[in-house]
């Protein structure tokens, strides 16, 4: 589904990703871990199409297409979803309106009929129940006045409604208490599907107790330095990221 090869990305004149390669197949759950500044969020933003990132080398193929030449909205309509590390407040735009506009824009792009407001309400109510979110949230402006936890849960709620093929979760666990973390994990697990892939970007192993990954990758200094199964996350938790860096040095010597 997703093939990232030798990706080099520069932000504001500084090289952040330096030859990152990662292949993700449908149905897989990948976790991307690493210390601050390693380039985790840069990867998420580049995949979603944020401006300000200069691709100096490498390719990103998504379902056989060059992902990098698509506009952000085209990527979304093709099934790419980024749960933001810092969800943006949109005053004056209510959540229901926002989500229906998003869903219908995607459907229009795909040549599918638009969803009317009754159908939409039915859909969102079903999704709210899974995430244990209050219906009142639908009537509020997007993320405005939301607590940190509510914002992150709202991201997962949007994901549930939009049903992407490739979901990238950028530190969705940061700032969540254990209850909120479980709710987010439940929301993600409910969406696991042979046709859907996840890339979970996280700093801590904690989230992976609830969302069990098929693969764990460690990113350091702009590239993936270690890949393994879920036990890699546990080793990281035990030894810290310095352990990976040391191993790398040993390997290089």
């Amino acid at each position, binding site marked *: 589904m997703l093939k990232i090869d030798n990706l080099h990305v520069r932000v504001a004149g500084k090289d952040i990703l330096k030859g990152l390669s990662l292949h993700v197949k449908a149905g897989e759950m990948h976790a991307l871990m690493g210390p601050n500044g390693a380039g985790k969020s840069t990867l998420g933003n580049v995949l*979603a*199409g*944020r*401006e300000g990132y200069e691709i100096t080398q490498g390719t990103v193929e998504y379902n056989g297409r060059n992902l990098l030449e698509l*506009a*952000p*909205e085209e*990527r*979304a*309509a093709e099934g790419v*979803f*980024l749960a*933001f590390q810092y*969800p*943006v407040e*949109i*005053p*004056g*735009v209510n959540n229901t309106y*926002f*989500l229906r*506009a*998003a*869903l219908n*824009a*995607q459907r229009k*792009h795909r040549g599918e009929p638009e969803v009317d407001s009754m159908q939409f309400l039915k859909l969102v109510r079903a999704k709210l129940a899974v995430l244990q979110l209050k219906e009142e949230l639908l009537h509020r*402006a997007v993320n405005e006045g939301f607590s940190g936890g509510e914002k992150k849960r709202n991201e997962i709620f*949007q994901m549930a409604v*939009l049903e992407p093929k490739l979901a990238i979760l950028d530190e969705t666990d940061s700032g969540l208490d254990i209850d909120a973390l479980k709710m987010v994990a439940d929301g993600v697990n409910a969406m696991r599907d042979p046709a859907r892939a996840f890339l979970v970007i996280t700093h801590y192993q904690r989230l992976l107790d609830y969302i069990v990954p098929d693969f764990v990758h460690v990113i350091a200094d702009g590239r993936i330095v270690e890949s393994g199964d879920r036990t890699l996350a546990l080793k990281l938790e035990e030894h810290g990221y310095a352990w990976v860096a040391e191993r790398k040095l040993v390997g290089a010597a």
Partner: protein
Amino acid sequence: MAGALLASLLSEPVPAGREHLAAALLRDGLPGARDEAWKYTNLRALEQRSYAVGDAQAATRAIDLDALLVPIESCARLVFVNGVFRHDLSNVQLVTGLQIGRSVDDGRGESAPTDGDLSGARSAAFSRLNAVLATDGPQVTVLDGATIAQPLLLIFVGVAADADLAWNVLARFDLGAGASLKVIEHHVAASPNAHLGNLVVNHALGAGAHLDLVQLQEAAPAATLIRRTTCRLEDTAVLSMHTVETGAQLMRHDLVVDLVGRGARFESRGVFALQGRQHADTHMVVTHDARDTACDIVWRGVADQRSRGVFHGAITVAPGADGSDAKLSNKNLLLSPNAEIDTQPVLEIYADEVKAAHGATVGQLDERALFYLRSRGMPLDLARRILVGAFCGAVLAEIRPTALRAHIDTLLAARLPQAETGE
């Protein structure tokens, strides 16, 4: 010296008793760059134009009013076509406590009206022009204690004529003590035209009166519209006002509010949304003359392409107007590098124990918000429309009835960017 404009407007004999005003106008001319109140609005192009005075065929021009009207029930509908009152299009119900007559009696055998600013300052040239040439307009009176449930519609329809026309209308609203009225002043075009409208409206609110005023301006894209709204509020009177400016090539609105009675309150919500080469200048002057008076002003402005918006909000708290509360907020969005917005909040306080807050910003659409919407699948133009709509919507939330609000939303949506506009 006067240019072609005043010469064309004042070439015919003016109504008796108004000759001195006409002579003064011809002598002084229109405001220029050196008149502080007009420094952002250049009238040189207008000054070179000439117009026919009044529309002799206005009474018979075919108008499809239903296509233009805001779809709401009203107690009275007063329709002016090219500045001429149309009985056949108007509609007045008999309502206890509401009286409707004429503000000027054809101009025959009557001295000039004394409404507007006749101080003689050149900056008030359009007020004087109105005093010279206005020969019609409504006089609406609400008797003491009367509450008029349904809104009164005051509609100005511009329609194409053989020549570009100038019209002058004077409207007066007198609300007695404790009276209550809702007025919707609507400027709309039945067909493309480049007329010059010059409207003076006086609102006098007696003690405890309540006026809910909506001004909806969607004049023809080539039209010029000059308005002066003066409001005088006695003790505890409340003026609650919404202003929406989307039309006209050149628009100037002087809004003068005098809070002369203790506890009087003025609330203003307004928005302008401009595109093309539109120029809209709102010049608001609020004076707190009495104790415990309040004003609460929130305005938004959006300028796209090569348009220019001006917002001047001056609040003066006069000596003795202690305990006054003055709030002004003006936020603006530039959607194009070629658009311009000038905002000028001015606060002058000569009293004690005054609460005052004012702020003004001019900015651009938040890139983070745009990306957030796009990342959810909304194309750039839709994302821009949604964000700009929300920005404007912040001042429209309290507009009632909802049918009016919906009409305004639709109107604004049509004025918002349809696509990337980086011309």
